[in-house]
């Protein structure tokens, strides 16, 4: 026999879910990406479109890295770029050695974009990840 207390808890959970599902704005997402031995982990991330996503980038390496996210044309520009530090744009983030940084982005359309560190040799070494926007 189910106790009254258990039934009350189930009702509360169902009610909360119903309220959350009725017209509330999407909850902001938080994604933590670790940088270790010059690789991103995870290297494949899935987020919904139309929702602000906060990326927390934790650099465990004693060397500087960067996290640049965009389409193929965006990365092609940065492969030949000369900016040593990125600070102004949310899709271009510098992550100093043994530190962390964060940025918040909203992706309007579903699709795939990539995030890459464009410091010399880092992309070839494997500092590449894919973001699936659903």
């Amino acid at each position, binding site marked *: 026999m189910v106790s009254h207390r258990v039934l009350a808890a189930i009702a509360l959970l169902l009610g909360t879910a119903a309220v959350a599902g009725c017209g509330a704005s999407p909850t902001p997402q938080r994604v933590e990406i670790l940088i*270790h*031995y*010059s690789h991103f982990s995870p290297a494949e991330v899935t987020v919904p479109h139309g929702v602000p996503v906060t990326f927390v980038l934790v650099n*465990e*390496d*004693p*060397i*500087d890295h960067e996290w640049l996210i965009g389409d193929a044309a965006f990365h092609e520009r940065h492969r030949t770029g000369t900016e040593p530090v990125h600070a102004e744009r949310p899709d271009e983030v510098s992550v100093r*050695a*043994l530190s962390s940084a964060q940025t918040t982005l909203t992706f309007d359309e579903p699709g795939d974009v990539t995030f890459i*560190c464009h*410091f*010399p*040799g*880092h992309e*070839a*070494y494997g*500092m590449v990840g894919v973001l699936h926007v659903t």
Partner: protein
Amino acid sequence: MRRLISLAAATIALLVFAGPTLACAGLIGPNGAVNLLRTTTFAGYHDGVEHYVTSFAFAGGEGEFGSLVPLPDVPTKVERGGDWTLQRLNIETEPQLFLAADAARLGAAEAQVLLEVRIDALDITILRGGGAEVGAWATEHGFRLPPDAPEVLDFYANRSPIFLAAVFDADAAAARGQAVGDGTPVHLTIPTDDPWVPLRILALGKTEAQTVEADVYLLTDHRPGLLPAPGSAFGPNGLELAHSQKATGLLLDDLRSDAGMEWIPDSAWLTKVRVNGSAADITFDLAIDPDGGTPSLADAGFLPYGPTPAPWVTPRAWALLAFAVALPLLAAWFAASMLRGRESPPLAGA
């Protein structure tokens, strides 16, 4: 008393990049570019003390250029090296090359600075720290480490958290009148029980397909045990045993007459190992047993360093495993034998 003499000598690597200089054993310029040509290093072991001699060559240009060398233990002395030790070893094993080239002459928490020495235009710093700490120190001091540096520094720091950082002041070298190609020999005295020659560091910053080239000379009391074992020709590990003979008295006398080399013994065995492999293959160091025994897997970088090896590789573990597998089999065989004996009809009187 155990007497060790081994002269591990090795490698001359020239790290050239767009301007300034070079060094031995692996590193980096302000733009992260490195072109490693060849390294020369000489390490000798006597009564548990390693004498490590290497040469940092000036390649012109301006500004500073750095190099990191992993060490098996803490040096008690860092001084200017002798003038001809590396070249004399080269003559002994490959005189024709010496004639052909002056190349041989080219010869988290914070890292703890153990020793700082200025030799000519070189600023030498001995550091103690983990990979992250030493990497952070190098980054703070202007080194642009390549992307494989974090893993490689940990590879060494897990065995011996001691590194030599050398910064070549190209402006000071020019002011001293050093010409491009002039080397500055450095001699380190390192008490240690675990001699090894760093090889993996030579691949630092290289792509997998790029080649690592180095010469490693060893001088020991006896024919040494080496791991990995070099073949008579370059094998999959990129190592070749190019010379293995009792050192001549003339060679030992010549070496002993160089500055700081009076420790050279009266008798020794000379070995030369030539390294020529892809950076993807050179993922180990050269471990040495100067008495001819089997060197440690950990010293070669094949196992995590520590007093307790992985349990599955110890002989005792193998014996226990064999016993654990054999015991039930024996019990089953014994039980089956007993059952057969009980169920078999008596032959007589059937």
